[in-house]
């Protein structure tokens, strides 16, 4: 109905508008964090290598001799225009870092997210539906224990088993070196790019490289989802409207799927979305374990080299992305749950 359409639209606009102050605060925090370290980024990164005058020149060029408030305004301006400069140590533009490595991380994160949702929601629904049976206890125990596995330990075991012992899957990188070299990168998402170019051997190569890292990361996160989905399902199955539906003689299967499952998943959407943000953060561990050239690994690398411009750029994008995701979650929730649109 048209009334629903406009309320959803209003909600979306309001939500996006509210995101702006949050982004602003995050950017401020990033800015301050970067300036907590003594000295300025240029000196820290290159001070040992360059003579004093050149250092001074570079500082002026990058604007680090200006007063802090002015730097702040410039920084905000740069973010809006998406021009966050070049890294100090290897002269890559921050934008290119984000595009090349960011896409790698995003591809990994989305794949892991799919694994996490399928395993987590699936087991959670089973556990709740068959409460107190071995299925339930087993799923919960699995959830607790798998979450206790650091991603790099699970990765270690996976590499040991599937790499060393069985030799089934590759354990390093996004693709074999040859494929990497030959790949026509349009979207920078290798799976999609290989599909576009129709090259099946390339696709298979890229796919097998994605399996272990995605499965490892996804499984660990699924642990949280299992418990969450289960608890929500148990609550909805005791719900008043479930009893009322039974009183009308509605079939049990329909009740479980249509009323219990569906309503249980609403809060799960929110949490799942938050998990996505956590995945982004956790991706850096997976990247280190599997030599995945993602943006998390780059962050570590630039951090070690004191390349604060690159670090600042990367963290900024992370923060903004997280806010975007939370806005997206809220919109999806509003789409599913009509009550949200009116609050």
């Amino acid at each position, binding site marked *: 109905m048209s009334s629903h359409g406009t309320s959803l639209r209003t909600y979306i606009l309001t939500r996006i508008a509210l995101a702006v102050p949050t982004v602003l605060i995050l950017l401020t925090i990033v800015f301050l964090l970067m300036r907590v370290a003594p000295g300025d980024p240029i000196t820290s990164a290159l001070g040992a290598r360059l003579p004093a005058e050149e250092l001074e020149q570079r500082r002026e060029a990058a604007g680090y001799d200006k007063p802090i408030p002015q730097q702040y305004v410039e920084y905000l301006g740069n973010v809006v225009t998406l021009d966050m400069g070049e890294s100090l140590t290897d002269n890559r533009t921050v934008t290119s870092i984000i595009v090349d490595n960011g896409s790698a991380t995003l591809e990994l994160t989305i794949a892991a997210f799919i694994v996490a949702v399928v395993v987590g929601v699936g087991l959670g629904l089973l556990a709740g539906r068959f409460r107190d049976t071995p299925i339930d206890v087993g799923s919960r125990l699995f959830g607790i224990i798998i979450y206790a596995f650091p991603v790099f330990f699970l990765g270690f075991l996976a590499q040991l088993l599937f790499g060393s012992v069985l030799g089934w899957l590759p354990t390093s990188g996004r693709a074999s070196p040859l494929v990497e070299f030959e790949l026509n990168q349009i979207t920078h998402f290798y799976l999609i790019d290989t599909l576009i170019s129709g090259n099946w051997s390339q696709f298979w190569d890229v796919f097998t490289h994605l399996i272990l890292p995605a499965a490892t990361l996804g499984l660990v996160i699924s642990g949280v989802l299992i418990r969450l989905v289960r608890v929500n399902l148990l609550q909805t199955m005791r719900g008043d409207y479930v009893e009322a539906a*039974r*009183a009308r003689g509605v079939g049990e299967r*329909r009740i479980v799927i249509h009323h219990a499952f569906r309503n249980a998943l609403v809060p799960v959407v929110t949490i799942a979305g938050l998990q996505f943000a956590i995945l982004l953060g956790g991706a850096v561990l997976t990247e280190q374990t599997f030599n995945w050239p993602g943006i998390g690994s780059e962050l570590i690398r630039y951090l070690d080299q004191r390349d604060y411009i690159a670090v600042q750029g990367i963290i900024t994008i992370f923060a903004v992305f997280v806010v975007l995701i939370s806005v997206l979650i809220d919109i999806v929730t509003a789409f599913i749950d009509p009550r949200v649109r009116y609050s």
Partner: protein
Amino acid sequence: MSDGPVTASTDTEPVLRVNDLRVWYGTQDGDPVRAVDGVSLEIKAGETLGLVGESGCGKSTLGRGVLGLLPDSAGVEGRVLYRDRELVGIPPKEMRAMRGPEVGLIFQEPMTRLNPLVTIESHFMETLRAHEPELDKEEMKRRSLEALAGMGIPPTRFKQYPHEFSGGMRQRIMIALALVLGPKLLVADEPTTALDVIVEAQILGILADLRRNFDTALLLITHNLGIVAEACDRLAVMYAGRIVEEGDAREVFAEPAHPYTRELLRSIISLDTTGLHYIPGAPPNLIDPPSGCRFHPRCPNAMRVCPERFPIEVPLAGGRRTECWLHGPADEIPPGGSEPLERQEIALAEEA
């Protein structure tokens, strides 16, 4: 779409017949809670039976028991006959098929009884599909709108969501949902308790129309005696899992036979009330009820026989009945049993 034997003349045969029904709830490590402990009653077509009692006397359990909507920990014994069809022990599938087309239940709190994510239309479609899947969408829609119109809900609101309706309207939607398949028996469990008096009057009016227009038998469960006076043909008073008095509503109000009924009526606040009247003592323990007549600890007319022997049901004039030693049977009362019970007993009960 109901199976089962159809009685010859539905006029005189009761729609619902409950016979010595007992519903006991299991507890963690103790004795069961005897929520319904031997209840018998009848309701004819087009008749409204009011079931009153204090909170926790077992009325809701009785209502749910008729529809087979009890939790897993509840044990049921006795007989519940819907148009001569035994409902106790019936296979769950058959019971499910009867809920909706034959028997319906209206709940107390309308605010939470509709799925918030789903439109009213969807609720109706689901109900109709579950019982009459051969109907086409148009027909289902027509029937739904008809039921809603009967409740005063306009068709323009058919596709709206539950939260867009007020409490009173939601209750009306619930009633429409319960009626859309044309059940012969309706159980209303405190349908107006959560609503304000004006809305309550509307709902009661709707329920009264049911009786007139559709010949629906109605079991109206409430703790509000005011409603009963207005809406019910007959009245059953429940205490500690038993029916202690039953009969024509007006007659029971005019001349209550059981002391509990009398005390309840005295507790009603009206414009003439100058002081609060209350029944001393606390509601009885349903796990270990008082010996003999369960009301004796709080009864102002208690006699010596009352804690000794369980009262035998006595028929009274005009088709009424009661369970109270005050009404005999005299030959069952042992000598000296009619003497008033010592005050001490009641004082002890008060401390409890």
